[in-house]
């Protein structure tokens, strides 16, 4: 959609002590698009997302937001840029209602008094914009909501703040068919409304249902980031399990060595076929 991606990570390295979890990872997300981030268990998806969200500092690499290099040291830095993450375990307070959860930590006040009417109005307008029809009352306790409804609240919480990038870590993992469809519809809608959405999922049906781009991590390396229409289901599965598929993905040497390769390429459709394993 836009020439410069709203979010671009370049050559990210991340280690936990001796364990290198991310190696030279490149990743972009465009406004108005859903970018699916896929990969096997332990591939480093959550770690990458936490680096974007400021929870983990990156060891090296560039963090570009709207084309400009930025430094993100804390979740607050990320949210002030307009990057919001919906974690897999949601992190909602069950004993609080929907409005209270959506404004948690960023309550509106008049003087020292909570401005409940304003918060309630903003919350209901946000849910309204997202066409959320499933909650009975926004003063319902989160404890009384279904998994899909909670996911909806968590997503609404993320978009309440004029966010530009919303990252969802396995939002449908615990949901049934109907609720998954609901959440995917919401994801699609966020992108259609101009946000950059990053969706982590293990479910290929979900990925192909909503994604514009698919980025595939393999053992801490970005195997490929491609347009969803340019690949088939089985190619993505191969990328996930083997790191390459035909001329897509990591070179054999890189797959085998998982060494000090370097992927430099343009944003958007990405093919790391040009990647050189060192010797």
């Amino acid at each position, binding site marked *: 959609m836009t020439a410069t991606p709203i979010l671009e990570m370049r050559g990210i390295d991340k280690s936990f002590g001796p364990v290198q979890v991310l190696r030279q990872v490149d990743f972009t997300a465009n*406004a*108005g698009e859903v970018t699916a981030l896929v990969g096997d268990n332990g591939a480093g998806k959550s770690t990458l997302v936490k680096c974007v969200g400021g929870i983990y500092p990156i060891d090296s690499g560039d963090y570009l937001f709207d084309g400009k290099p930025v430094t993100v040291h804390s*979740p*607050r830095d990320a949210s002030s840029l*307009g990057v919001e993450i919906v*974690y897999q*375990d*949601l*992190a*909602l*307070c*069950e*004993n*609080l209602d929907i409005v*209270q959860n959506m404004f*948690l*930590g*960023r*309550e509106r*006040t008049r003087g*020292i*008094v*909570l401005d409940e*009417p*304003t918060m*309630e*109005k903003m919350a*209901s*307008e*946000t*849910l*309204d*914009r*997202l*066409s*959320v029809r499933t*909650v*009975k*009352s*926004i*003063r319902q*306790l989160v*404890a*009384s909501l*279904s998994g899909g409804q909670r996911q909806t609240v968590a997503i609404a919480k993320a*978009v309440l703040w*004029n*966010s*530009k990038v919303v990252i969802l870590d396995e939002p449908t993992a615990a949901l049934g068919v109907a609720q998954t469809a609901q959440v995917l519809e919401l994801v699609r809608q966020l992108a259609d*409304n*101009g*946000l950059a959405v990053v969706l982590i999922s293990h479910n290929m049906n979900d990925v192909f249902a909503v994604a514009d781009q698919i980025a595939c991590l393999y053992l801490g390396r970005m195997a490929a980031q491609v347009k969803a229409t340019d690949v088939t289901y089985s190619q993505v599965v191969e990328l996930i399990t083997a790191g390459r598929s035909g001329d897509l993905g990591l070179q054999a040497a890189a797959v085998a060595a998982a060494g000090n390769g370097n992927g430099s390429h343009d944003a958007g459709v990405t093919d790391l076929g040009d990647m050189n394993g060192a010797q």
Partner: protein
Amino acid sequence: MTALQTPPGRTEVPGSTSRSLGEHARDYVGRIRGGDMGSLPALAGLIVLCIVFGVMRPVFFSDINFANLFTQGSQVVLIAMGLVFVLLLGEIDLSAGFASGVCGAIMAILLTNENWGWYLAIPAAIVTGVIIGVVLGVLVAKVGIPSFVVTLAAFLAFQGLVLLLLTGGKNISINDPFTVGIEKDNLPPWLGWVLLIVCVVGYAGVQLNRVRSRRSRGLAVDPLSLIAIKVGALAVAGAIAVYFLNQERAINPAFHSLKGIPNVVPLIVVLLLVWTFVLSRTTFGRHIYAVGGSKEAARRAGINVDRIRISSFVICSGMAAFGGIVAVSRANSVDPNTGGSNILLYAVGAAVIGGTSLFGGKGRVIDAVIGGAVVAVIDNGMGLMGYSAGTKYIVTGVVLLLAAGVDALSRRRAAASGLR
């Protein structure tokens, strides 16, 4: 780019439709069925207990006994009000009883041995409570020792501290008229009525103002009939209490008249209003509930969890200081057992009986007052019936277990009905 567009054909805002009185009633019944009983069991129990004791011992309903209930229960209620803050986090403070003893002893020593004025001695007692709270809170939040262990240790240490302060356990009596008057003196009857009117009008004003500001934003409002019922209930209950407390209860009124609301009642009411405001209307209060509901969610929302935990212990020990002050006022003296024996368990019992959950995240300050009333009525009524202290402890223990059982079962029930 970031502005979301409103999809067409969608006008209804969730929760924007005002509901009728009948719907409110149905909602309430639904909540109770779902396991969210709040103070209902305690209120029902209170009424039943009063009727039982009143029928079996008519003296229970005498004016003097009615006033006694307030002065007897005040220490427990004040400590319980502070405990609610700690319980809301899912923590416990077992040392609150003896903390009140320490604070009371400090006040008595300053008043009697050091000849300080009450206006210095009472703040000194409260500051002592605050310091105790900071120490407990830091040990729990920063060092990471479970609150059960920290406060169990403090329970023992404070018991010793009181003994040391009273050099070997001697009584210290106080005769400062102001301090003694907190429990012994009463408001003039006319002032009692004035305060009641102020409270009722203020309550109605707050409710109506809420309706006005919500309506002006097009949000759902409570029906006026519901507000009228709430305000009316407060007015009637208050009027009955003020009327009976304003009756002459001295045996020889010509010698020394005794009527009016005991001074400690407005003290409790003011603290109740302040803490209720803090919990339900401020960001700080909201964050207490959040930390009690999910520490991790609160942390990710940018809430300073440690600060909230330490503050709650400070409020708890600070309120224990108030409890100690009224205990010393009532006894005219402080002894090594001030704040000891059953005080702490009665206070925990009061909060839990009133509907505050031991699991954290659920509770209100008024729970402490309602539960404290239940505890005071049991203690007082069984005393009138001639039961020994032993039986009273057993019965109160059973009531506490009952309340904790209701708490645990209502959680299970909420889980079963998909509410949790």
